[in-house]
């Protein structure tokens, strides 16, 4: 997994640079999301990973599928990926691209797991607090997880802020040992 991320980084960086030059990061984001979704299709994955399928026929197939969905630059990128046999990197490229984009635009994708649904004001207040703590605009993605018992668990990339009852109980268990 980590190796794939390393391989995907130069592609993502190149796409991001190009997107910034042309000011079309929104379009690229859509293109990558589209490619990720079609490549997650099981029947296509079998075809892509088959070494007997020539680059040419794969390239033709991808072009036909994505006809009308992606622009000429996107098509070129796709062709390059087919040529280098790196189509399976697309999900990672999309992920890293989104991370670059988020960093550039100064916001942070944050997953929030809460034991109970937030009220509207509560959500606003919490997001303001998170922004203050993380020093960036946040894009909250709230999931209700009853197993936390109470409180919230915030996950921003690698960083985890655990304010849940479950986490505290685990912490306590360790302290009492």
């Amino acid at each position, binding site marked *: 997994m980590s190796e794939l991320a390393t391989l995907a*980084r130069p592609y993502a960086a190149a796409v991001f640079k190009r997107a910034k030059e042309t000011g079309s990061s929104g379009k690229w984001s859509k293109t990558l999301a589209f490619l990720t979704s079609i490549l997650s299709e099981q029947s296509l994955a079998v075809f892509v990973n088959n070494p007997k399928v020539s680059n040419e026929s794969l390239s033709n197939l991808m072009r036909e599928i994505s006809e009308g969905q992606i622009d000429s630059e996107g098509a070129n990128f796709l062709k390059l990926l087919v040529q280098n046999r790196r189509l399976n990197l697309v999900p990672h490229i999309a992920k890293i691209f989104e991370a670059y984009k988020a960093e550039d635009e100064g916001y942070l994708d944050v997953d929030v797991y809460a034991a109970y649904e937030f009220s509207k004001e509560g959500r606003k207040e919490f997001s303001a607090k998170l922004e203050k703590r993380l020093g960036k605009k946040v894009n909250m993605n709230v999931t209700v997880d009853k197993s936390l018992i109470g409180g919230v668990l915030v996950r921003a990339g*690698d*960083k985890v*802020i*655990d*304010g849940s009852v479950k986490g505290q109980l685990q912490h306590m268990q360790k302290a009492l040992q």
Partner: protein
Amino acid sequence: MQLNPSEISDLIKKKIEGFDLGAEAHTEGTVVSVTDGIVRIHGLSEAMQGEMLEFPGNTYGMALNLERDSVGAVVLGSYQHISEGDTVKCTGKILEVPVGEALLGRVVDALGKPIDGKGAIETTETSPIEKIAPGVIARQSVSQPVQLGLKSIDAMIPVGRGQRELIIGDRQTGKTAIAVDAIINQKGTGIKCIYVAIGQKRSSIANVVRKLEEHGAMDHTIIVAACLRIGRIAIHCALYRLRDGRILQRPRRRRADHL
């Protein structure tokens, strides 16, 4: 089931009173692969070199390879229960072992945990495992001998204080006997001895401990035992402990797969 000394209800009450309920912030990663105690972890972007990592099941590891997308770590102790997809937490602490006078007279494992059943080690000081030993220039020059208590050695090939001496020989020729004699002879001289047993059987370590106790030499001695059971990483840590003390015996059984 055995009752631990820390399970006395008053102690538990005190711990609950002083328990910090603040939200805990840490960095997390995911185990990508486990191979013979070496673990690759995705994420953990803020891990430090030599940092203690927390694995599930109260197991700890040490971060060694810091790469762009992953961290290579070694697991201290058993790694059978760790599998791909497990979460790993940063602890923010460099791997440290307890040090200080409280260790005298104790038998500890490579990570400084007591294994002699005499309760916890009351020490507040710790020292990082990975640190650079003082060089030749920084050290005091050797100016006085250490009396090993063996006339032939003290007369013909005296060992200086602060000097390293390798005891080498075939098995069953008395290498351990020389080391134990030397420790016993330091009684009352103020010299502290550390006996580091690497890859030895628990029974042979117990024998040494008994011998030292018989002669009242445990009061100035620390025994660091990295048994075969606890794994090669702990043995690696034990080797680091050699740096701080007088080397009395080199590992008797060096197995290629351990070092």
